[in-house]
């Protein structure tokens, strides 16, 4: 069984939701990423989404754009990102790691070579600019190497497209909560719920919701209709604020995530913010 599947099955047995935490690899410096990854899991992260830095992250807001710039200033390459995951796996063999990024760095590395290199280390790949129409080749390679191809769904995705995507996807589905870029904050829980209901008619696969989830209350509200929530820009903002001051970075990241995780795990903590 894949790490992703095991993770969702175990959570489901306990009637719990997954916390997926995003950071950009190499931010603020490649030598800091491993420590931050361990901090994420210490604070209750169920799945790590590790961003591959790219010079032109067209679906990302300023927070993650700047994270990419910081990582690239130190030359963080896809090879470095894979090296970091390899180190992580020396002590953590259970937490699923999903790489998220754009197609060009993977394509230049070579899709086949990439899949072969990360097989067993990385559990899934989200390629933001690779919709199903363009992903057939990469997805079949990933499948060969037991790597899940995780697709995005959006508020604009039609029933027909939902069907096409759920037919191809594995691991879990990633619902982008609003029309916009990462780090924006126009999430509307009612419309998310309605769309998740629509997607549910097509699939039993776990559904994660991302974009715009910055605190425990929003996470809790959104988690009511899905299987996992993704927190990204809120974590990256903390890293941006403290830079290479690792004790400050990790302690603040941990307290944010613990608060979110507690809210997800605990029925009592919900506050109505509506």
């Amino acid at each position: 069984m894949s790490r992703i599947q095991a993770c969702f099955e175990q959570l489901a047995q306990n009637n719990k939701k997954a916390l997926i935490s995003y950071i950009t690899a190499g931010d603020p410096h490649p030598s800091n990423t491993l420590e931050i990854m361990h901090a994420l899991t210490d604070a209750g992260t169920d799945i790590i989404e590790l961003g591959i830095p790219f010079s032109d992250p067209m679906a990302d807001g300023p927070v993650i754009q700047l994270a990419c710039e910081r990582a690239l200033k130190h030359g963080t390459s896809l090879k470095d990102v894979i090296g970091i995951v390899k180190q992580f796996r020396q002590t953590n063999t259970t937490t699923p790691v999903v790489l998220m990024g754009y197609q060009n760095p993977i394509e230049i590395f070579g899709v086949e070579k990439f899949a072969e290199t990360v097989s067993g280390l990385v559990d899934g790949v989200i390629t933001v600019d690779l919709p199903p129409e363009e992903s057939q080749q990469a997805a079949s390679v990933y499948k060969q190497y037991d790597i899940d191809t995780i697709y995005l769904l959006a508020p604009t995705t039609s029933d027909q497209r939902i069907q096409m995507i759920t037919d191809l996807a594995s691991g879990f589905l990633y619902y982008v909560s609003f029309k916009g870029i990462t780090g924006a904050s126009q999430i509307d829980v009612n419309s998310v719920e309605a769309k998740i209901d629509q997607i549910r008619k097509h699939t039993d696969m776990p559904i994660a919701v991302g974009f715009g989830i910055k605190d425990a209350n929003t996470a809790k509200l959104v988690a009511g209709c899905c299987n996992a929530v993704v927190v990204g820009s809120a974590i990256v903002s903390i890293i941006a604020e403290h830079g290479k001051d690792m004790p400050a970075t990790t302690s603040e990241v941990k307290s944010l995530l613990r608060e979110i995780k507690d809210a997800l795990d605990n029925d009592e903590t919900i506050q109505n913010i509506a």
Partner: protein
Amino acid sequence: MSANVKENVMNAAIMPDERGHFGVYGGRFVAETLMTPLQELEAEYAASKVDPSFQKEFDDDLAHYVGRPSPLYFAQRLTKLWGGAKVYLKREDLNHTGAHKINNTIGQALLAKRMGKTRIIAETGAGQHGVASATIAARLGLECVVYMGADDIQRQAPNVYRMRLLGAKVVPVTSGSRTLKDALNEALRDWVTNVDNTFYIIGTVAGPHPYPLLVRDFQTVIGREAREQSLDQTGKLPDALVACVGGGSNAIGLFHPFLPDAEVKKYGVEAGGDGVETGRHSAPLNAGSPGVLHGNRTYLMEDNNGQIIETHSISAGLDYPGVGPEHSWLKDEGSVEYVTVTDDEALAAFHQLTRIEGIIPALESSHAVAYTQKLAKTMDKEQTIIVNLSGRGDKDINTVARIEGIEL
């Protein structure tokens, strides 16, 4: 004509395929949120193509608002000076707003209107596409926001003011390399956020399908006119076509109607900057490799890790690390030859055309003029070359003056 060439010519007529691919290039590499809006645009464009009223409105605007057809002008003194083939200039600089860009913005703005969009956005490098977008927005009463690299705002100040006069909001882009590619990223981010009421007018034959197709179609008026004018004025087709290539819209506009004519040689001129050997240039077709950026697969300027690298050109409109996917395909197929011209050569051509013919060319177009000089000398006096004079140089006088050490 060899069987191979014939087959390529037939391919050219049906490119792109229904998914927007030109061979291995092109396609639609965008986040899921934009897939449905792009499909809607594709459907709307297909419908407008067979709608005589849309075509009539487009043609009327080109005739009465832009001032088409643009002249095909025989540059007699330049021809004599260069001592080779006869040089003809396709005068896109005489269009309303001073460049070929307006052909495309009118087409896309009419589509925006048809789709009921009330807000248009655009990216711009030299500012010509921004001005053309602001112009048509003013005329149609649409809100207009133009994204422009902070560095380009500095070097194209007159066009920035022009856009503001026309009522557009010009947003400086400070991310990445602060030039055209970053403006494109920012426009895509705006579009994904405001997709319900917003139409994104892309300024060149790049971006995700159907943009490379529809921008090409709107620009082929250049080549169709040139073909007819050449037959009228010289009794034959030209022997060669020359156009500068930034994203490649003025070049594809001139070349495309001549693709079936393999005997007409086609030269696309990329910005050689300080010289391709220095690495400081904007010539992906000459010195780049295929990759994925801004929604399509094409030749790019990138490093070994797939990061897009900074480009350089004296002309903001050519300062782009990618190129339209159809050009990538035409390069691989061999139907167009892609060459480079340095900043210095372009600048010399800028002065020469100004002094010999009394026409101040855009620095972008000066690249095409510079290559034509080299080419003309290798050809017979009976042969003809058509150069696409894609724009006028008024916007560039500050840049040129600065290089000469003159403060305006």
